[in-house]
């Protein structure tokens, strides 16, 4: 399709690029506002994007970088299974599978709809919602983790495929929320389709398609220009990975080769595990694209062009590049570590542009229980941020979602209304920011009390391997899960709570940057006055205060 396209001047390209961005953002707003589950409506755990006919990202809205993995994964699988000639306006494909649907874990259900103009497909409106379902499942392999959906038509020419819908809903624990969130996903795509059609009507389809190509070329140029500014060389870094799902620690290693305007990244890790910590290759790609963009140039457009100068490799069958039938539900912790690895390696090349290790996890708590009045199940998922790594000239951010995640917390006043839980404390963890000339960000503490019996699954990382500092900065605090006395010990992060039980979730802080002795005494004194560090510890670590 690229040979017949007209040349488009840079200004029209910019104007159409703005339109793509605003379409993706509008789709995201519609999805959040029309949805029912707390995970979407308050926590915004969803993403939207536009794709060209060949499956390249035209634009991804600024929601959750991790979700790019599912987006780039699904279109090839749709095109492999379904002849384009059979597609009709109003067809909507749904999919989530990690091996046959391009997904990165099963709760992320993607809806993709071809955009027709004058009888031909000109692109795709795509969105993903993390359905807080498939809870309290096993994670030895993917068959335990939930319903695997290859890309199938959920709508055919605008008509809902009731059989398919019912098959999906029967496999979900909270079908009413699933149905409603799927409707919200439909609303988002419908809007994306209409707005793209209007754009093609206004500028002419060939011009819009040409602008889409030009925007990818533009992202590629910016990426190449940015990489060219990084000194050539090979940079390696190794980190240790832990998780409640595995015993002991794993070693993750990365080797980055910068040559001119290209970058190759290679990752080594142990063989894939019988636990939900594994990452598919598309998950690895989304982590790499995100991390490289943050270091090279954060203003590069979020489209497929930025990937062209990058080569990403990892042996198949390992944790960082798993194959069927590995379980993947908790892939995000490992993905976060991939970002840390890349920052750690590139510190040797561009020390001012990288940051120290962040909380390195996606600490999450999934509660499942039955409503006393009707026996229907409820599922509440919360992912909790932590410290963000210190920067060369600035302290790290305290208590935020870092890197590949970007969800919001559920307000206490919504949480307690919807679920039989009480939040007793929600605060920064004193002393958890790694010491340094620039202090690492602080972790978070959330203390829940169960008001009814329920099951709880806790995910996290950096419970044993602390988030490292850079350039002499010290590590930040580690994560922890603590329980009231009579709670039966959890196994691999899962267990039961009874009414009145209390669980305390502590997320990791982040590493510091630069020697602590170089921190200005006034800032140390400020941290002590604000209770962020304790005076005795300050004297020992900083030599002041």
């Amino acid at each position, binding site marked *: 399709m690229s040979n017949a396209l007209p040349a488009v001047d840079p200004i029209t390209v910019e104007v159409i690029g703005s339109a793509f961005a605003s379409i993706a953002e509008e789709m995201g707003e519609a999805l959040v506002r029309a949805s029912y589950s707390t995970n979407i409506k308050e926590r915004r755990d969803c993403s939207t994007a536009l794709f060209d006919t060949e499956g390249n990202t035209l634009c991804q809205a600024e929601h959750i970088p991790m979700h790019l993995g599912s987006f780039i994964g699904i279109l090839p699988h749709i095109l492999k299974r379904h002849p384009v000639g059979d597609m009709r306006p109003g067809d909507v494909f749904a999919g989530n599978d990690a091996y046959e649907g391009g997904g990165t874990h099963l709760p992320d259900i993607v809806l993709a709809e071809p955009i027709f103009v004058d009888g031909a497909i000109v692109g795709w409106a795509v969105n993903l919602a993390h359905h807080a379902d498939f809870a309290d499942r096993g994670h030895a392999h993917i068959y335990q983790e939930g319903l695997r959906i290859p890309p199938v038509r959920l709508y055919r020419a605008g008509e809902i495929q009731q059989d398919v819908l019912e098959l999906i809903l029967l496999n979900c624990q909270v079908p009413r929320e699933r149905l409603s969130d799927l409707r919200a996903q439909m609303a988002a795509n419908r809007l994306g389709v209409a707005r793209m059609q209007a754009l093609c009507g206004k500028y002419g389809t060939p011009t819009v398609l040409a602008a889409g190509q030009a925007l990818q070329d533009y992202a590629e140029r910016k990426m190449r220009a940015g990489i060219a500014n990084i000194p050539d060389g090979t940079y390696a870094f190794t980190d240790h990975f832990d998780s409640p799902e595995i015993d002991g620690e794993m070693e993750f290693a990365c080797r980055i080769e910068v040559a001119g305007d290209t970058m190759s990244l290679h990752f080594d890790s142990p063989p894939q595990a019988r636990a939900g910590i594994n990452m598919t290759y598309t998950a690895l790609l989304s982590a790499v694209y995100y991390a490289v963009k943050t270091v090279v140039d954060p203003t590069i457009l979020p489209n497929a062009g930025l990937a062209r100068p990058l080569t990403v490799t990892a042996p198949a069958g390992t944790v960082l590049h798993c194959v069927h039938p590995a379980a993947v539900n908790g892939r995000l912790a490992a993905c976060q570590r991939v970002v840390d690895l890349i920052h750690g390696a590139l510190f040797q090349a561009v020390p001012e542009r990288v940051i120290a290790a962040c909380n390195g996890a996606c600490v999450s708590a999934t509660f499942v229980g039955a409503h006393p009045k009707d026996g229907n199940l409820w599922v509440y998922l919360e992912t909790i941020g932590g410290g963000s790594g210190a920067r060369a000239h600035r302290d790290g951010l305290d208590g935020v979602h870092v890197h590949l995640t970007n969800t919001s917390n559920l307000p206490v006043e919504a949480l307690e209304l919807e679920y039989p839980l009480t939040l007793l*404390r929600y605060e920064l963890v004193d002393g958890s920011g790694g010491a340094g000339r620039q202090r690492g960000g602080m972790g978070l503490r959330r203390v829940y009390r169960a008001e009814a019996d329920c099951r709880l699954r806790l995910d996290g990382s950096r419970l044993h391997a602390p988030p490292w500092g850079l350039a002499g900065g010290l590590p930040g605090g580690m994560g922890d899960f603590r329980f009231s006395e009579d709670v039966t010990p959890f196994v691999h992060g899962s267990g039961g709570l009874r009414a009145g039980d209390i669980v305390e979730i502590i997320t990791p802080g982040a590493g510091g940057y630069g020697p602590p002795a170089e921190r200005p005494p006034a800032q140390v004194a400020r941290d002590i006055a604000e209770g962020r560090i304790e005076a005795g510890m300050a004297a020992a670590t900083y030599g002041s205060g």
Partner: protein
Amino acid sequence: MAWRIGVDSGGTFTDVCLFEEATGRVEVWKVPSTPDDPSRGIAQGIEEGIARVGATAADVGYFGHGTTVATNALIQHRGVLTGLITTDGFRDLLEIGRQKRPELYDMQADKPPVLVSRDLRLEVPERVRHDGTVETALDEDAVREAARALKAAGVKAVAVSFLYGFVRPEHEQAAMRILAEEIPEAFACAGHAVAPEFREYERLSTAVVNAYLGPVMRSYITRLAERLATLGVRATPHLTQSNGGVIGFEAAARLPVRTVLSGPSTGVVGAQAVGKLAGIANLITFDMGGTSSDVALLAGGECRLASEAVVHGYPIKAPMLDIHTVGAGGGSIAYVDSGGLLKVGPRSAGADPGPVCYDRGNAEPTVTDANVVLQTLNPEYLLGGRMAVRQDLARAAIGRLAEKLGMEVMATAQGIISVVTANMAKAIRVISVQRGHDPRDYTLMAFGGAGPLHAARLARELDIARILVPRNPGILCAMGLLLTDLRADFASTRLTTLDPAALPDIAAAFAGLAARADAWFAEEHIAPEARRLIRTVDMRYAGQNYELPIPLPEGPVTEASLHALAEGFAAAHRRLYGFVAEGETVQLVTFRVEAAGIVRKAEFQPQPDAGPDASAAIIGAREVWLPEAGGFVSCPVYDRDRLAAGNRFAGPAIVEQMDATTVVLPGMTVLVEPYMNLILENAA
């Protein structure tokens, strides 16, 4: 009591609009602003203004004012040292917010500064549950101790915000009483009084912003009131809120957080009034200044009222007109980025040094420079001849940009206009398409210094067929103050199901709100016949967390009102999201009453029709670059002051007046309507 005065004090000028009730005469007076103490410039402007029209201060029957004092204090972080008292376990909520980082990909970005430092955020034992029951009673001794600690720390303001304060305010009320005893000199406010709505962080943030701005606003208002009294102005002074309505100084001093959009909302009110006179109810307002532009949408003459927005990085729950601001104006700088694309803004050359053509040391081309090169702006002077410009410098600067792009100079200048137009179009899509409105159904009202210059291109970009340029685009805000009613908004959250069984609850909620509105009417001395109430209900499907505001018909609350609500909700939901969830439970969440005190407003008289011939207003011709014609085209230049009602002419043309230039593109016609507004229309 013959004159009404509206004062808009902006960054550069303070505009005073005077209106004589008996004759309908309107006079405008501009004086330089005095940013260190805006009340000084305002007093000077009023004094000179009334002297100029031959009136005295005692003749002033109404004084309305739009101010940027609150918004500037928030942007520049010049509020007071503020303390917070909150529920045990939640002092960091203000800092954590929703756990969002400020930028997704930029590792160097920081959050906006927290307005209360961690050592001044004090926790006290207390806990209310979501149903209003008390789990832990308030520890009043702990509150007293906290108040004393904050006093010792020297705070000038204190916010109190507890979990579920909006459900059961007793704990917050008790804390306020203790604060009044222990630290009476400090400004204090409570979450339930400032924003009685669900979501603890946003309510807390609103209470904190209110406290932080409280003393700043109180001292400003006190100074201004004193200056007005010294001048001999006896009329009760009023201030515009972010909702476009005006309130008395007392109320504004209590709730400064409600005035953060005072400035731009005044412009929307002005536009609303002009639209009403011209008989145009569906408007998109486009107020383009030097560094930023504000856009808003008026459907049926009304601007959507948002109940919450993030203002300068801080979430604020307060009724605000749905105004969208974009960081692009006449002074915005154009540049080529590392990937070779042309970008405009948000960096601005401001008024000083200003665009390249001002010759005050800036070498980076701005939007104004592009207009000077294209000659849509006068290439020799601006401001009616008061300011010379250097087109050669502007051309050279754009030439440097053109070289980088590999484009012609004129195409580059036109490109700057195209990019800035696209930015504006994006902003307008936010307030139109994203809210379910098609911009093509609206008239674009262009004002502010640069609005009329860019309106024609913007309208074409959005397929808008009609543009209205008001008689005085530069002082529309001040004029708006003479055309606005007194207004206050009251809300209460009470989760209810749309069901006849809920009728008593709904009636009780509205009765409570009406009582609060009555108290306000009394405070503002509004006569019974001038009182108006508009009732709305925020509704959603059970399970959703974002509501749609649906109007409740007048009269007693009956089953018929419930039907109207149900139908209104279904229609709104379908319009926005494309579906209706048949059979799903519908919830009523927040009940709102908008109370208006109808004031006597300036009345403008239509001018007699002088016929279509506009030739007497032509003061010359200018070569203007028009890409559709492929080059410079000689365009007639009209003097706005010489145009008469009924005059008609066709584009391409330029209309100049002291504070604005209107561009009319080929294929557009212009009519001077009876109220002297220009109506530009695309020929079919």
